[in-house]
């Protein structure tokens, strides 16, 4: 609904239709070559893995553009329902990254992440999601190289699996 | 005057080939000299391992192929173990020796005997599957003309049964011959 001056009545809530943006090209199609490119959502904790991704940037290390980072204050803030939502909206792979256990800026945040996702990871696999589509990593603020390595390996793994159909509900 | 960007450009392909064969990356070298310093035979070499690295870094790798060093190197790996930049220095020297042979470079006279011994050694293995030590020593004497070398040692060793008179041929000699031919095919090498 490409309206420049939004004349629509002020709807406090977002209607589903309004969510669509025809500005960005169709999900998954690569702007350049048109071949299929996997879409990967990475939930990164602000203090460590997000800083690690920044360090990869300041060191100009290249990694696939499929990775799209959503910043959260702590890996403990990542709700398993966000993972389901990402797959629903067309993600082909989801990554969760936090500080190494013991290094969490909030001291115990990642301990809960470790417990929660050791259960959720097995359960997602159990209900039929291919295990290579979801992975978790501990990446510190000084591990720019590890972030890049993880991004590349995970993108290739997801690319080899092809587009994800499970739970896909793209409008 | 050395036109560096030209030599670096021209020599890059050769340096990359050596990097690949030795499974290492010479560009990491920061010329600290630990390899040359620790090399037991550096004093006898015309250019030390560090200088060989520098030649390869600046694209003058071909020059190293004419050096005596790559034949004197005893592949004892002291350099590789101590290199702070984790470069397989001994591997590079070995790769250069193989390249020198493969590209038919003339081997400096002073170190020609190393090549002769290697050929005799491999010939002996090819024929009987194991080394015939006496044959090796005699072959060296014939090919180098040093007939009286270590003759004092030879007789006592014979008497103590340390030098058998006949080569010990293994049953699988045909297998060894087949290995040599297969390797030659795969490497297309000039033996």
């Amino acid at each position: 609904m490409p309206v420049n001056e939004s004349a629509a009545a002020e709807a406090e809530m977002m209607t589903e239709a309004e969510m669509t943006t025809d500005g960005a090209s169709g999900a998954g199609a690569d702007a350049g070559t048109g071949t299929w490119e996997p879409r990967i959502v990475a939930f990164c904790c602000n203090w460590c893995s997000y800083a690690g991704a920044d360090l990869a940037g300041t060191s100009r290390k290249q990694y696939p553009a499929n990775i799209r980072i959503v910043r959260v204050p702590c890996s403990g803030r990542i709700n398993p329902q966000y993972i389901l939502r990402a797959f629903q909206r067309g993600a082909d792979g989801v990554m969760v990254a936090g500080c190494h256990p013991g290094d969490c800026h909030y001291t115990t945040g990642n301990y809960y992440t470790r417990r929660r996702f050791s259960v959720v990871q097995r359960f997602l696999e159990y209900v039929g999601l291919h295990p290579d589509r979801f992975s978790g990593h501990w990446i510190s603020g000084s591990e720019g190289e590890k972030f890049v390595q993880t991004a590349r390996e995970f993108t290739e793994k997801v690319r080899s699996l092809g587009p994800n159909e499970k739970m896909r509900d793209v409008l | 005057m050395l036109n560096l960007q030209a030599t670096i450009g021209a020599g890059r392909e050769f340096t990359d080939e050596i990097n690949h064969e030795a499974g290492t990356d010479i560009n990491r070298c920061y010329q600290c000299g630990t390899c040359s310093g620790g090399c037991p035979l550096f004093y006898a070499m015309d250019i030390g391992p560090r200088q060989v690295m520098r030649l390869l870094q600046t694209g003058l790798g071909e020059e190293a192929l004419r050096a005596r060093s790559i034949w004197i190197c005893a592949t004892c790996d002291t350099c590789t173990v101590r290199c702070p930049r984790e470069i397989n220095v001994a591997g590079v020297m070995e790769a250069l020796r193989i390249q020198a042979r493969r590209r038919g470079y003339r081997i400096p006279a002073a170190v020609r005997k190393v090549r002769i011994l290697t050929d005799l050694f491999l010939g002996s293995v090819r024929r009987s599957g194991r080394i015939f030590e006496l044959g090796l020593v005699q072959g060296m004497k014939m090919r180098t003309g040093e007939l009286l070398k270590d003759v004092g040692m030879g007789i006592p060793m014979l008497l103590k049964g340390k030098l058998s008179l006949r080569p010990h041929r293994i049953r699988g000699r045909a297998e060894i011959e087949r290995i040599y031919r297969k390797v030659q095919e795969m490497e297309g090498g000039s033996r």
Partner: protein
Amino acid sequence: MKRIGVFVCHCGTNIAATVDVEKVAESARHLPHVVFATTYKFMCADPGQKLIADAIREHALNRVVVAACSPHMHERTFRKAVERAGVNPYLMEVANVREQCSWVHRDKPVGTEKAAALVAAAVAKVARNVPLESGKLPVERRALVVGGGIAGIQAALDIAESGYHVTIVEREQSVGGRMAQLDKTFPTLDCSSCILTPKMVDVGHHPMIEICSYSEIESVEGYVGNFEVTIRRKATSVDPDVCTGCGECWNRCPVKKLPSSFNMDLGHRPAIYVDFPQAIPNVPVIDRANCTYYLRDGKCRVCEKVCPTKAIDFTLEDRLVKERFGAIVMATGFQTASLQQYPEWGLGTYPDVVTGLHFERLVSSTGPTEGKIKRPSDGKEPKSVVFVLCAGSRDEARGRSYCSKACCMYSAKQAILLREKIPQAQAHVFYMDIRTAGKDYEEFYMRAKEEYGVNYIRGRVAKVYPEKDHLVVRGEDTLLGRPVAVEADMVVLAAAIEPRADAAALAQKVGISYNRDHFFSEAHPKLRPVESNTGGVFLAGCCQGPKDIPETVAQASAAAAKVVQMFSKDALVSEAQLASVNEAWCIGCFLCQPVCPYKAIQPKEIEERRGRDKIKRTVSSVNTGLCQGCGACAVACPSGAMRLNGFTDEQILAEVDAVCL
């Protein structure tokens, strides 16, 4: 009525080179609620911020998205800019299109498409932001300095001089740290203790400074402005209030031959000791592991007998002291590498192979040899000494890729001291690159070569081995291109500077991050070098990375300035993005309570109308003073009643949707 403005930064060419900023702005114009989108070369600069203010006025914007560098860089800058223009600072989101897009994807179309998606995500999120106010936090105007070396002393003095109380926690018997072990300092060659001891005395007598020597940090709770630190005051067996430091006890103590770690085990000390003569506090401690009284239950007691003021009290126990602080300065210093992974140099095998710190003790007048340089093996005066640089540093193969920065200079100094004390001695220095990056440093290095005839050999030492009555140092003189061997009576290894062995454990206690080599991580290498990522914790000296004394002192004063800046405000601005409870949805199950690291969740009685009657029930509530906004509670709450402002479920879901489309 949401009216969002999108501002895409060129960042010179950093973004514009690999992201078509115009196209990103164009695609942003079609996003819901976006009424204005533009680009500018430098959004963070004044004109950029003015552009935002003007756009807010002209287009009546009430929400802003800035697509630029990482929020770690300029989120604060843009929030202030937006606030000045009358919009709540938390109605602004940053899209990281530099570090996480333009710099890491060279293909322009791909980079542009991703940047557009990141902007879409930021717009979707900002559309769901709600205005937030940051609260006020009380500040405990007391500072804690961990480590009593020159860094800790300087920081403490600067803070105390600004009128605030400082507690220094020092693990050893006396403050002074590494600098107390040095003889002279470069580049001025003035005597280390002459410039250090006055500062130690100041610290010792300053009314606002309390020194907890022979003590360690047991635990740290709380957060910026309100740290609760437990300090373990190790039992010294000497009553500090009564002891006058007369020295009777340590002179008469029968246990004489204990290795003195202050003298790098080259000298000896008694069981009751002070580290060095100018020790502050000048009160000895008893080394209970080696004191006869403790080893053979109650024997000896000589020190007790000779003590004129009866200060000895064997029954004293460790005390755990709990104190509140507003800020912490980490100044824990360094240690030199043990070099056990280098058997080829023989440190620890051949007695005459020593490290720089050993040499400092040998050449120091308070050292075991009263300043006369003698070989540890037979005490002879060395006629030839070899200094080996980069001993353990710049060696990725064995775990230390970094340069220890100060060795070139202190080795040159030590060579000069050698030549001054033993004019006929030869000084050789094996080096790879001499690094004299400081004021008067290069001149000092030239003096060593010209005035003192120190021989510099460019080459990294391959092997050190004993031969007859001397050592042989083998290497290559890479400028000559020849193998060289130097016969030396003593070899001084400039061992790498590394953090203290327990640095990582201490970092986890205090809650700050550290890098691969266990140096504490600064918030930003260039822009915030003395702050850690954790609010209220500052860094000074070698604990943050190898450096020399001038830089350490500069950092210490900088850290002190940061602390004083914090204390100068009447209250701390607390985090605005905190958790809050939707009391209608909360069923009082308190699953949120155990996951809160700051114990910020308490029960609260509320009254509700249920049909005709009023009922009272208990729901969760967040103490905004303690909450730090980590969000663990928001996930533990099944119904989503617990929300984390700034990162609510709606916002994150909106981001996920936008990023995936």
